[in-house]
């Protein structure tokens, strides 16, 4: 039984893989996209419960994608977590301005990302042995 469907968007294939792995372990169903255009496609076809979105991507960047999701009545309820190496305050502000629900800077901890996702989706945190890296 899936806890929900999550769309992971990043042009770095390794990041997509590791999120797929971590979220899969947590019991989520994961769909992926490698650029902004693909992401918008998948939002329509897959109707995810939450989106993890990278900012610096070819074709359409994360801000654009987020803006487009948040401006459409059909999709604006979907929580978006921006994930980016851009760590300055202005970048974060810009992220919230386009309607993002959270902003996490790279490098990030997959564990913490999972926790944020659980919170946003109103899930309780699954007890797992953790080891701090």
């Amino acid at each position, binding site marked *: 039984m899936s806890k929900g469907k999550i769309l992971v968007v990043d*042009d770095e294939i390794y990041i997509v893989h590791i999120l797929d792995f971590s979220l899969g372990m947590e019991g989520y169903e994961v769909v992926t996209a490698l650029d902004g255009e693909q992401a918008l496609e998948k939002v329509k076809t897959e109707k995810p419960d939450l989106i993890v979105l990278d900012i610096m991507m070819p074709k359409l960047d994360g801000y654009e994608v987020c803006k487009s999701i948040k401006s459409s009545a059909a999709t604006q309820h979907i929580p978006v977590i921006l994930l980016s190496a851009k760590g300055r305050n202005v970048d974060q502000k810009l992220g919230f301005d386009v309607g993002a629900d959270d902003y996490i800077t790279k490098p990030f901890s997959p564990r913490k990302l999972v926790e944020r996702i659980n919170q946003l989706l109103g899930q309780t945190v699954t007890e797992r042995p953790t080891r701090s890296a």
Partner: protein
Amino acid sequence: MIPPVDLIWALAAAVLLLVEQVRHRRSLRHELKSLRTSYDAAIHRNDELTQASDKMGDLYRYQLLTSRKRAARIKKVLEIATSINSNLSLDKVLHEIVHAVSDAAGFRIVLLRVLNDASGEFEARAFAGLNRDAIRKLEQTRIPRSEFESWLKEEFRVSRSYFISHERKFWGEADDEGYTPELGARQEGEWHQEDVLFVPLYTKDGAVIGYLSVDDPVDRRLPSRETVETLEILATHAVVAIQNASLYERLNQSMVQLQEATDRAEELNDLKSSFVSTVSHELRTPLTAIRAYVEALLENVGSTNVDMQRQFLAVIDEQSLKLRRLIDSVLELSQLESGRFRMSREPFSVTALIEEVVVLLRPMSDAKKIAVQVESTAAEIVVEADRGLLKRVFYNLGSNAIKFTHEGGTVTFRTTTEGRVVRVQVEDTGIGIAKEELERIFDKFYQIDSSLSREYPGVGLGLTVSKSIVEWHGGEILAESDTDIGSRFTVLLPVTAGDASVITHATWSPSRSVSDHLTRLTVEMIAEVMNARTASLMLVDEERSELYIRAARGLREEVVCGTRIKIGDSIAGWVAKHGQPLLVTNIEEDPRFGRPNGHQYETKSLLSVPVKIDGRVVGVININNKISCTPFTEDDRALLSSLSDRVAQAWRRVSDHERSSDRTEETAKALAAIIENARRSRLKLNSGSMAGRAVSLGRKLGLAEEDVEVLAYVASVHDVGMGQIDHSVLHEPGRLDEEAWAEVALHPLRSAEIVKPIEFQELVTEIILAHHERMDGRGYPRGLKGEQIPIGARIISVLDAYESMTIGRPYRHAMTHADALQELRQCKGTQFDPKVVEAFAQLFESQENTKLVRAGEVA
């Protein structure tokens, strides 16, 4: 496991970059602060002056009430006063003042001289009522301070001015030019033409900064006290104007400097911060992957899924390698850019190096089934360079080419030589680069469309590093491309350090108005025309009484930037001090300058000539290393002196009209045409000696040394106009048809037109125009006859004919020396001047035979 060393490296590099950034900002802030202080001080000074000027205005208003006649004059003065404050160009203001003096005080002739602090002489700056010749003469005569002071005798003083009446016989004796003034009797109360009235321009502190001198009063009367006082009021205004203007000039200058510094600071700051943010972003990407996978591994440490663990470790391994490569590139780039880089040059074979690189690239090319071809014009092409660095360059270019080429495509390395330059081209049949991208590909971290970066991974620093390396060698890297057809990268490398292109050294100097571009062309032109591998252009730094190198070809950058020679010291210093050329045949044996030969000089002979503008030495041109490896001769000296005169002329023209980019462009065009002409004529076998022959022939015919120098120059440039003629016309076999002939017949006109911007002697143009005229009047373009043709042109005509006969033209085979001489003799009287042909025959009868044998051996 993570190699922790890599992580530490990454963080250390990031911290280093940030520290450097902070330090840089701090020093910029300091620079800006000090500039701002001087700017404020200048503003303050100006306010003070404006106040002083206002007070003076009050005084005039008071005086205005005193007399009607005066009122009219003072009104004019006030008008001028306003214009002084609103008008910031000193020359314009002084012009208005002298005209006001003329109008208000009633003198037809007015002269204003201003003291030049640097020379201690009074220079004529503004005139009224004088014709152009008189003005020019006055401009040329400068009055030394001591002479001026000798006029300030108490007995001449009226108010604060000086009136020297002709009875005082101040000019009693004949002056230097033998002019004895006419001292007739004076009519009662009338002005005499030898009277002198001048008003010193005193500053508030009593210092003299110039003077007004007036003559030819409208009323022909001796000046009244009132007139003198009016003059003095106007003089005060001239003082304010001069001080105001120089203040404004300084203010403007510091504002420009401030603006430039701010721009530069901002630009640097932008560059640095964009670099820092890009680097940190690029560092974060692999770091993010590493951290995420490490965490996932740690959390699943008990898992039995060995495949998953192995897969994760592979990602960590790969990403840490990527991080390490990135850090290496960044560090390398910062070393290259900061100049803290050590390069070791050694001779090696480029062709062998490329073979080596191709082997290294094989795994990549094989994987994509790409054929890598190697072409070269010679089995072995040797350069003196840093082998390791160049290997990186070729590897970078090669791997890029493979990366961006589809499976089954071709990558070609092509090596050719071109004079002292080696050209390596890396060509592919890949996806190509769009035009608008081409300009940016050498930028840091730039990858054509970042979506490609997944398909074509790389850190995006390869081309930037390659460019730095090539430029460090004094070379150049160029990119050409067509989308979907392929790309071609061309590396141009000088064979040795000495063959590097012209390096300019920018420093503050009065001659900064001559642009870098023009300076570079000047040096290039000298090197090409003189057939010298090394040429340098030094300028005089008057403040420090030193010479420094403004630009050079064939010298290392350290030498160009670091050399300073005291005027009077060493060879260039001697030349600058004496204003004379200096020819040294063998530096080790020269009694005056004997010293061990510097390693940058392959030959022991050198030649230096002064560059003079208006009789003043402003620089020195030095040449070394004749391409033929023979010592320089008196012929070369004549030619170089002549070139130096043209350089001076070009500069004067450009700096006289500083803001005229047209003139700069014309001058640049002339220099470029001469460079091209020199290169073109070097392709011919025994040319280059034409200037030398012209010198010998001119001397034998008893021409003045000055004309011999002109002849040497004309021999080098008389055919520059040929460059504009369509090549196919010249290379058409068989005789020229009518149209082509008309084209060729125009070339003397074209040549004259091209060199005009740097010409100042009519004789040069005359000779160029007439060098295809014939004694019998059947030549072109004007059909001049016999003595109508300048002797210089008659000489060039013989030399030109001889050269074209012995070299051969597309429409005619080469002749032997004897046959050519025979031909010249047959045409004397009709085509050539008999006495020139005879002189030529006597001079070269024997010499030329041996020369031809040597040339034949070479061929």
